[in-house]
């Protein structure tokens, strides 16, 4: 702090402090840099999570054959055959269990959450509400640097004896509560500790977002003039604030059971395994909305901007997100219809689950209403937002099958479920890409290559559907999830060709992402310089330079209207920024 660089401040702009490399890029308190840090960590973890999925897919399509390029992984995870050289190694079934456990954990907690909430939440909230930074910049820094050890721990768990956690991301007791039952000891402890630490990081983020949105909105930025993406992040933060303590308590009890001899979840000591499921899903279902709400917010903003139309039913959109959040607390039992929970409870949870489908339907129809009568520009963010809507429709509709208790008897724990939650959760990746293509100019000051972006979209969309849609068929045939060799079951032999088809599509899906990475890295360094407002959008972040300087706004903006005043009859252009004052004085002042 007391070095020469810190003294030599106040050079030209009062608010542009020269902070040095470490304070600017590593231990930054600037919400924009913290957002970028979360973003890069999420992209890095996306690669790991995706590669794990590829190994699993190979195993499912061609069970017990060597998995290519894996002979570097040591025994007892992969068994290399010397004659195959570098080509491949046989997968141990226990390692397959580790792979799907870690794939889900990484994708949920280390990709989707940091990308949309940590990354775009941090970057967008102050910019969109007209604030200079978050309410607690230091807490924000701590939030990111608490997430880093969590990432380290979860990756390190692959290298301890027994390997990484293998009990599924739901970590059902008693398999998870007694190390002797799963054969994985340190791996599960590290998994628990990593999520405990990550929970602290998310909590710090959540209180920061809530405080910032309540207290730091610019003059005129009333609640119902906030962009829907800010609404979604606000509701998400509240859900996190309330749900994470439940997870933390459950994880703590699980860790005590494993290491200190308690019996919260072990019947031998008077515990109750189903308690874990109740606690986990009481957190777990709000968590689903934590994942999907920000993507819905992003989609709403992008659909309005590129349809050049106000969002259809702004208040209905906001209130449907609020009701989703409320209802998400009373549907957790629909994960447990065949768990042994009292069947009468099953009926109650089915009815609440049917109710929660209504706000989702409202959102979909409002998105359609937004498209109706628009003047639609098919830029890459718009394509990805439309992809998100299309996947969400399929994921939402397939949820109705499992909501119906009798049908769930058959569908539970089959690939139908896998298809369903990938359409919702992996579908979020379309929301993530939409956000990244849309705000990339603001994040990094450069444009991404539009041709590559569109190619990326079409390949991703096609292969995504080829990879995940046939999983419904597998589920209908009764194909269980979490099995590493479908050929062990005679009734699944006829369906195996679907597994092969899915795996080929998944490999193509993964390969298509290379286009994205090339575009991303190339555009970071050599993309066309971005203007302040390349998309002709209304919200406040587009009124400042790309990328915005320290402190965001030179003077605090005043907000005069809602965020979606596109094609307003009041002005000649088809957009009307939130901070533009209309009237003769304002007209002459603008160039």
């Amino acid at each position: 702090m007391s070095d020469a660089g810190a003294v030599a401040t106040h050079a030209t702009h009062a608010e542009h402090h020269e902070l040095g490399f470490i304070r600017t890029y590593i231990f930054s308190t600037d919400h924009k840099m913290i957002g970028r840090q979360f973003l890069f960590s999420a992209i890095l973890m996306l690669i790991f999570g995706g590669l794990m999925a590829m190994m699993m897919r190979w195993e499912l399509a061609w069970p017990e054959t060597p998995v290519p390029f894996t002979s570097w992984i040591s025994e007892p995870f992969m068994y290399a055959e010397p004659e195959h050289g570098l080509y491949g190694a046989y997968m141990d079934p226990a390692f397959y269990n580790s792979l799907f456990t870690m794939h889900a954990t990484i994708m949920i907690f280390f990709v989707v959450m940091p990308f949309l909430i940590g990354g775009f939440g941090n970057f967008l909230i102050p910019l969109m509400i007209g604030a200079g930074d978050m309410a607690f910049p230091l807490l924000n820094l701590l939030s990111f640097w608490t997430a880093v050890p969590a990432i380290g721990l979860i990756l390190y768990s692959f290298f301890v004896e027994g390997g990484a956690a293998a009990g599924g991301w739901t970590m059902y007791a008693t398999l998870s509560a007694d190390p002797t039952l799963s054969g994985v000891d340190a791996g599960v402890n590290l998994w628990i500790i990593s999520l405990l630490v990550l929970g602290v990081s998310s909590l710090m983020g959540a209180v920061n977002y809530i405080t910032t949105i309540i207290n730091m909105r610019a003059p005129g930025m009333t609640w119902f003039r906030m962009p829907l993406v800010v609404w979604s992040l606000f509701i998400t933060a509240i859900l996190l604030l309330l749900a994470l303590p439940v997870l933390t308590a459950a994880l703590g009890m699980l860790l005590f059971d494993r290491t200190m001899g308690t019996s919260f979840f072990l019947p031998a000591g008077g515990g109750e395994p189903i308690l874990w499921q109740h606690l986990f899903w009481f957190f777990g279902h709000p968590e689903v909305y934590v994942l999907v709400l920000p993507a819905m917010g992003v989609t709403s903003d992008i659909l309005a901007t590129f349809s050049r139309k106000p969002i259809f039913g702004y208040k209905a959109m906001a209130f449907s997100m609020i009701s989703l959040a409320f209802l998400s607390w009373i549907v957790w039992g629909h994960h447990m219809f065949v768990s042994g929970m009292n069947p009468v409870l099953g009926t109650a949870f089915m009815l609440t689950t049917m109710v929660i489908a209504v706000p989702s339907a409202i959102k979909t129809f409002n998105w359609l209403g937004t498209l109706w009568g628009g003047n639609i520009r098919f830029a890459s963010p718009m394509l990805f937002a439309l992809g998100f809507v299309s996947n969400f429709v399929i994921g939402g509709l397939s949820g109705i099958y499992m909501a119906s208790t009798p049908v769930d008897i058959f569908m539970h724990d089959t690939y139908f479920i896998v298809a369903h939650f990938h359409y919702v959760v992996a579908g979020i990746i379309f929301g993530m890409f939409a956000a990244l293509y849309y705000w990339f100019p603001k994040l990094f000051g450069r444009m991404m290559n539009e041709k590559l972006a569109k190619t990326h979209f079409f390949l991703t969309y096609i292969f995504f559907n080829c990879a995940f849609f046939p999983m419904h068929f597998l589920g209908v045939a009764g194909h269980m999830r979490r099995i590493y060799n479908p050929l062990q079951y005679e009734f699944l032999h006829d369906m195996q060709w679907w597994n092969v088809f899915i795996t080929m599509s998944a490999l193509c899906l993964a390969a298509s992402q290379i286009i994205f990475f090339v575009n991303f890295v190339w555009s970071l360094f050599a993309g066309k310089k971005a203007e302040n407002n390349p998309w002709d959008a209304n919200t406040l972040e587009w009124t400042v330079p790309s990328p915005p300087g320290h402190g965001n706004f030179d003077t605090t903006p005043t907000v005069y209207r809602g965020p979606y005043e596109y094609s307003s009859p009041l002005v000649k252009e088809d957009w009307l920024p939130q901070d533009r004052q209309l009237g003769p004085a304002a007209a002459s002042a603008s160039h």
Partner: protein
Amino acid sequence: MLRWLPEDVSPYGAGIDSLFYLIYYITAAAFILVTALMIIFLYQYRHNDNRRAIYTHGNTSLELVWTIIPALVFIGLGLASKSLWEEIKLTIPETDEVIQITGKQFNWEILYPGPDREFETGDDYQVDNDIHVPVGKPIRVLLQSKDVIHSLFLPNLRFKQDTMPGRTIEAWFQANKPGKYEMPCAELCGFGHSGMKGWLYADTPEDYAAWFKKRWPDAALNGAPASEAQEEVAAAAPAAESSQDAADQAAPPATANLQPTEEAPPEAAGETVTEAAQETTEAAGETVEAATDHTQEDGNEAATSVEDAVEEAAE
């Protein structure tokens, strides 16, 4: 998509399947409607420099329509599901056929009460992974678990129920068509989860009587008192059980392919219990050899301590 549903042989499966079809048609209609509208809008309202988008913030009556219609559909589906669910889960038909199924890593342990239809009497018979039931009769099952959560899944019988350590869960199923039905475990239960399965044999009355006769030679199907010879067999049964346990202990399943499942082929059920026990021991020996070949020691330790834990739990 519908044609991939496994053949249904259960009394309530038709209800489940028709509910499934109903949801299928509703969701397909909703999907086609939404997708068609989306495609039409995207084409109709594609960018055109000479046109301006319609400036509107929404329409309250439209909003009400697309709130109320889905709500009514969902309530209807909920009510339809409710009655069927109660029929399946809340009522167990009158029956005197009962078996106890215990999940253990990584087998289904089946316990028959024998001719007296009472458990924990001398004529109980225990075997791994093979269930023989008479066709067309409801079977009451008592589901238990020795270690972790398993889930008994009978795709053809539209039956799935988790087993929960520390509890006995009552359920029922019925096979209306003679045959051999696969019976996998549907809930992740550890490194040998994949491949954990058994078979349900729905026997015709004659086949069932023959099977019953072989198992309990001197008892009539409807529960006559056991003779001297019957008691001898019954005495041998625990021996078979303990050697089965010993086999488990000595040879934990190294990979899913090396499960003790293989040790008790269906034919064994037809032989005397003592012979079956011998066979089991032999098979166990083979498994030990195979296991030492390429098992990781962790697996051995884990499975041995599983047994320990179970014993502790039993106390």
